């Protein structure tokens, strides 16, 4: 054929923005109404891939937190007294509305967060709906959940969530809280408030009673006020370990129940008998899913020395096929970093890796001229003593270490202050079980990575936090047991 000299370049395939209607400004969602902040403060939320201002958002302060907690307290009486089957109806309704509006929400989340539409469409939104469906199913079966007969809700839950999975983290927090009869005041992250505000609209669409869910976009001070509020009974936080420690100090000595889901430095262990091609995919999913901005990312690759060269060759070749760019393009694999601050943190840690003598590699990769971008990056020659092997980078940066024996792999995998996730790659079933039992991590994936399901509990060891979200275990955090 004559015209085969040109390459198979994929033409741009952008998802349409017209499916989502973003208002120029949004208020706080308190007691079923959108309202301005008491002190009139606002902040802007931008699209990380273009730096375009998407909307102006009311910024919650201490007075707003108080209003919201009061509204939630008032709503708690009636909400907790409803039969479980009634609460389930609302949750099922919310889940169905999320499914119906999933395309709109996926585009919105991509605009506000910078992650590829492929992920919001195929991972985030289906999981968000699944969480509501799953906990809707529990709402009338709490007597049989293993926490005694008629377990009681705690009261008002103060929830603070991060920017990496804005709507999914909301679902993880709100679905079990409502199913168990609690009411909620939730603070989304300041860089990604939009999907939570759209969720507020969904609550209204579902006819959820006023005050059951309150959404307070704002900064850390609003989160701190929420955590410290004397009338909050339960605090749930997902975010950085540093903030988690601060929250633990605030809550200490009170009667508040607390769950923390914090940082991680997951080890992805590849044994010499692993299915290599699938392991390479799993490594890519482990660290480049959501630009590596995942607390359970497999950010440390532990590879058996005998296959190290072969695996790294395959991995580098695979990374060269990753497509970075417009997150709304359906063919984009790697989107934008969430904020300028986060990009600066990633850049500083990667530079430190280089300064400490690890070897840095990135595929040839053109970064867009506006927005916050970081090329997928691989560090080889990393040892346990390197900062990049110990500190959570929360970005698309993989540190490669090697080991010679299973014992050494386990020792290295566990030699971290974190304990959220780990991965094992081997064709040998007995080795999977033997190694998984020795890993101090909340989730251990085998021959896969970064797979989530509402039925499966999720949470950490050590500085990765305590408490479990998801599954039957996730109910306990919201029940008086």
């Amino acid at each position, binding site marked *: 054929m*004559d015209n085969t000299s040109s390459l198979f370049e994929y033409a741009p395939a952008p998802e349409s923005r017209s499916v989502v209607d973003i208002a120029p400004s949004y208020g706080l969602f308190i007691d079923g109404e959108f309202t301005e902040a008491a002190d009139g403060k606002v902040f802007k939320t931008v699209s990380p891939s273009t730096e375009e201002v998407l909307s102006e958002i009311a910024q919650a302060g201490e007075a707003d937190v108080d209003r919201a907690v009061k509204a939630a307290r008032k709503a708690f009486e009636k909400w907790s007294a409803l039969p479980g089957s009634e609460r389930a109806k609302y949750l099922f309704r919310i889940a169905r509305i999320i499914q119906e509006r999933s395309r709109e929400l996926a585009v919105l989340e991509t605009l506000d967060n910078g992650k590829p539409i492929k992920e919001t469409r195929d991972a985030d939104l289906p999981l968000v709906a699944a969480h509501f469906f799953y906990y809707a199913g529990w709402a009338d079966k709490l007597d049989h959940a293993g926490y005694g007969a008629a377990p009681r809700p705690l009261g008002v839950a103060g929830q603070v969530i991060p920017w990496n999975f804005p709507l999914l983290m909301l679902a993880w927090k709100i679905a079990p809280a409502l199913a168990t009869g609690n009411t909620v005041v939730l603070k989304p992250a300041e860089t990604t408030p939009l999907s939570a505000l759209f969720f507020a609209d969904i609550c209204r669409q579902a006819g959820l009673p006023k005050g059951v869910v309150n959404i307070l976009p704002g900064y850390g001070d609003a989160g701190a006020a929420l955590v410290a509020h004397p009338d909050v009974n339960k605090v749930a936080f997902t975010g950085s370990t540093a903030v988690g420690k601060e929250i633990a100090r605030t809550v200490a000595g009170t009667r508040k129940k607390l769950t923390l889901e914090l940082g991680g430095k997951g080890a992805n262990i590849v044994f010499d008998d692993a*299915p290599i091609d699938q392991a390479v995919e799993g490594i890519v999913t482990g660290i480049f899913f959501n630009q590596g901005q995942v607390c359970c990312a497999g950010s440390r690759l532990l590879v058996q020395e005998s296959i190290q060269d072969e695996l790294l060759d395959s991995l580098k070749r695979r990374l060269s096929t990753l497509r970075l760019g417009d997150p709304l393009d359906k063919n984009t694999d790697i989107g934008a970093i969430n904020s300028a601050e986060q990009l600066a943190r990633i850049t500083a840690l990667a530079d430190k890796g280089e300064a400490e003598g690890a070897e840095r590699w990135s595929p040839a990769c053109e970064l867009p001229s506006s927005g916050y971008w970081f090329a997928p990056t691989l560090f080889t020659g990393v040892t346990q003593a390197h900062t990049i092997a110990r500190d959570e980078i929360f970005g698309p940066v993989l540190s490669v270490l090697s080991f010679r024996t299973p014992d050494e792999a386990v020792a290295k995998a566990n030699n971290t202050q974190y304990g959220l996730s780990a991965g094992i790659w081997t064709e040998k079933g007995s080795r999977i079980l033997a190694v998984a039992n020795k890993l101090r991590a909340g989730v251990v994936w085998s021959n*896969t990575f970064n797979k989530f399901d509402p039925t499966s509990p999720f949470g950490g060891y050590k500085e990765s936090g305590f408490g479990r979200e998801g599954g039957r275990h996730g109910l306990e955090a919201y029940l008086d047991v």
Partner: protein
Amino acid sequence: MPTSAPTAHALADVTGSDSTLRRFLHGLPGVDAVGLESRAASLGTRSIKTTAKAYAIDLAISMVDLTTLEGADTPGKVRALGAKAVHPDPTDRTTPTTAAVCVYPDMVAAAKEAVAGSGVKVASVATAFPAGRAALDVKLADVRDAVSAGADEIDMVIDRGAFLSGHFMKVYDEITAVKEACGTSARLKVIFETGELSTYDNIRRASWLGMLAGADFIKTSTGKVAVNATPANTLLMLEAVRDFRAQTGVQIGVKPAGGIRTTKDAIKFLVLVNETAGEDWLDNHWFRFGASSLLNDLLMQRQKLATGRYSGPDYVTVD
């Protein structure tokens, strides 16, 4: 691919005996079925539009082995097929020719005549296709018959019974014998009938066995069983040819066959090629579609891109 590729001799010693061959094939990295299928599915979500789609359609047309393998085949039917291969769309002479026409050995002469001077190759399924259940002498006679009638390519089936019972050397020897019978004039496509091999590990082993024995192409299936080409088994074979070239420097072609009927499916396979083996495989010397009904869908989609309107089955030829 390593900068200094070793020669094919690097793997010569593994074919010394049944036991070295078995050790080598069983030492290949395993295949995780869940991971393989999810990778194939995720590549299937690539959105190919506008210019990329136009390019892909023409590329796919140029990769089709237009096939008739019926007991009822006649020289007339084969001539019609040849005419279509040369001018797939009589209304638009810019349409590329297909790669080849694929026929039974006794139809090679008729096919040769039908495509003479066009550059379209004639492929023939020899070796007691599709079951392969005949003595080696018979299979070789079948091949020689097709080659002497002018076949440019031979599609051979392996002895799946020998493979499944672990007689790898027997399969190897048959392939090398057929390769020899092909001489220098015909390229050899080795068909594994992946649906009968049943596991992905077997498909990877068969792929390496075929490549070690001198296949120019590895091909999924005959199109005559329930499970033929799938995105997953083709992805796996693309990984095999990619790895084989990295180890030996020798490039081998891939041909999925059977069950690929729509343009959408064909484009998914091209995405697999592009992102697995790479652009070096993106032409009809290295990648083929074994398909008969696919071509008309490609032609209708091509007409749609050119005119902005869907035509219908009567706007393309029936054979």
